[in-house]
């Protein structure tokens, strides 16, 4: 379970995130939606501990990210926005490095890497150096890297960026399967179809604030709109900018 409690973050004079609170439950896919620059990535970065909130806190399975960042990271799998790989390592070695950093023992690490190669359809890139990967191949390996330690919580920052239709389907199936196994999944997107297709719960974020949250039906009715896209536009139009 991922909990954000009144998160605040400023960069100089700009308030990037203000009073953001929500809960992403276990066994559910939660979508963080908002336009570019809404504060999605900043919020996620505070959750996966690379940024410290100026105020408020966040908990991963009840562990406070500011008090025990390492403990929180152990329970998290993360696909950051910039998901670069090591160009001189093969796909498999990229995944294996992160597994080792998460403390997996060599035998179970190998089994796990094989499993991920199968699940994410990575056979063609597993033993090639990442230098020549396409954007889609890079993202898929980065997702496998985030999943290597079978985390109970998964944070994905715009995971479908650069993926083709087939890869998006593979990813959706995988995320549903992980959800059904009880994983808490939080992902951000600015693509409405993505959210409609996948999410159980949506959190609409704009100008650094939560504008609406709940099941898709709740969000639609909150905005008084027919579909999620209209709801999104209506919510943003009515939200005051904060500085």
């Amino acid at each position, binding site marked *: 379970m991922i909990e954000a409690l009144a998160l605040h973050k400023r960069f100089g004079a700009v308030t990037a995130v203000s009073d953001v609170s929500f809960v992403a439950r276990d066994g559910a896919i939660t979508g963080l939606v908002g336009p570019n620059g809404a504060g999605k990535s900043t919020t996620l*970065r505070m959750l*996966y*501990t*690379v*940024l*410290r909130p100026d105020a408020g806190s966040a908990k991963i399975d009840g562990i406070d990210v500011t008090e025990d960042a*390492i*403990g929180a*990271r*152990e329970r*998290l799998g*993360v*696909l*950051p*926005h*910039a*998901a*670069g*790989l*090591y*160009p*001189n*390592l093969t796909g498999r*070695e990229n995944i294996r*490095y*992160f597994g*080792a*950093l*998460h*403390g997996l023992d060599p035998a179970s690490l190998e089994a796990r890497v094989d499993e991920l190669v199968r699940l994410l359809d990575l056979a063609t890139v597993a033993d090639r*150096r990442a230098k020549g990967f396409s954007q889609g191949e890079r993202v898929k390996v*980065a997702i496998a*890297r*985030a999943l290597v330690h079978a985390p109970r919580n998964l944070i994905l920052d715009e995971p479908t960026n650069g993926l083709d239709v087939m890869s998006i389907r593979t990813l959706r199936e995988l995320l549903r399967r992980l959800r059904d196994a009880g994983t808490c999944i939080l992902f951000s997107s600015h693509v409405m179809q993505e959210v409609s297709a996948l999410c159980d719960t949506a959190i609409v974020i704009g100008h650094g604030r939560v504008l609406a949250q709940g099941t898709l039906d709740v969000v639609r009715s909150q905005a008084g709109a027919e579909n999620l896209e209209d709801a999104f536009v209506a919510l943003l139009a009515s939200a005051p900018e904060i500085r």
Partner: protein
Amino acid sequence: MHGLRIVFLKEILENIRDRRTLWSALLFAPLFGPLMFAGMISLILNKSVKESDEALTLPVAGASNAPHLVGFLESMHVTVQRVDYDDQSARRAIRDGKERLILIIPANYGERLTSAVPAPVYLYADGSNSNNSKYANQARQTLGVYGRIIAVMRLQIRGINPAVVSPIVVQDVDVSTPAGRALLVLGMMTYFVMFAMLMGGLYLTIDATAGERERGSLEALLTTPIGRDVLIYGKILAACFYMLVSLAISLAAFSICLRFVPLEQLGMTTNFGPLVAFKMLLVAAPFVLLGAALMTVVASFTRSYREAQSWLTFVLLVPTMPVVFAGLLSVRPSLPLMALPSMSQHLLMTSLLRDESLPLDYLLVSVLSTLFFGVILAWIAGRLYRREAILG
């Protein structure tokens, strides 16, 4: 320490596969110095040996005016070419590069010589050309010897002891040992060694800091349950590994290269055998940590691979500065200087080359102070990686 080992091994593996790192760390940097060095010295030695043996060729105009002088020049192995120049044409010939030197003996030479008034001879040369002025000096010296012989004869004819016109005689007493003399030439060697060592870790350091950030792999790395300081220590240790390898290759290459340099021709010997090379490795090794940590600290302030590259090439010069200063000011080892990293390594390595014994306290101060500064810098690097700004 589990995380430290994993980061270390991964950086080693990744950089073994990077051609640029491998070239600079294991080939270019360690071999560039010794090869250039050996080539340079050989060239200088060959040149100076050849030139001092070479007979001087001197075009002489008006040779018939001074048959005795010309005979003397020929007896001194000067090849005299009888030519026909007057003042104007001689100037032109020199300026056009047709001749290096021209000696003109005027018609009144014999008359003035016999009446014991100074008899001028004119030596034409281009003083702005350092190469040719060497020949002019050689000619001037030979002519001076002739003049002194005439002077001595004149004094003896007049019954005066020629020694009265030489009130002071300066005698050069050269007390330098052969190894000491070689040191003048070898003094710059420590510079090349330190440079090679730093180059060995340069690309790894950039790649592990600015490169990792630019590629976008840093953020993911920071989400693993390994402390940020441990991550950076692992990277620093990997840089240390490559730097040690560079250092070892560089010293080995020097000890091999110098065998092919004809130092004996200048009366020099060098004791740079495998044992001295190994001792130099031990003396220089503590600096590896300091260098790696320093480069990491600087690189972590830069925003891109390119920026890191330009800053670090500048940083490469900083630790080598004391070497240059020590060389220029001929600094002698002393205990306080041993506390100065890079300076102490230079002085100790130079002592080893001189075949001097190393005082144990010197060695201890050098090692401990260098390691101390290295640890401090590594700690600073660790602190810098805790900043949020590290994500760029």
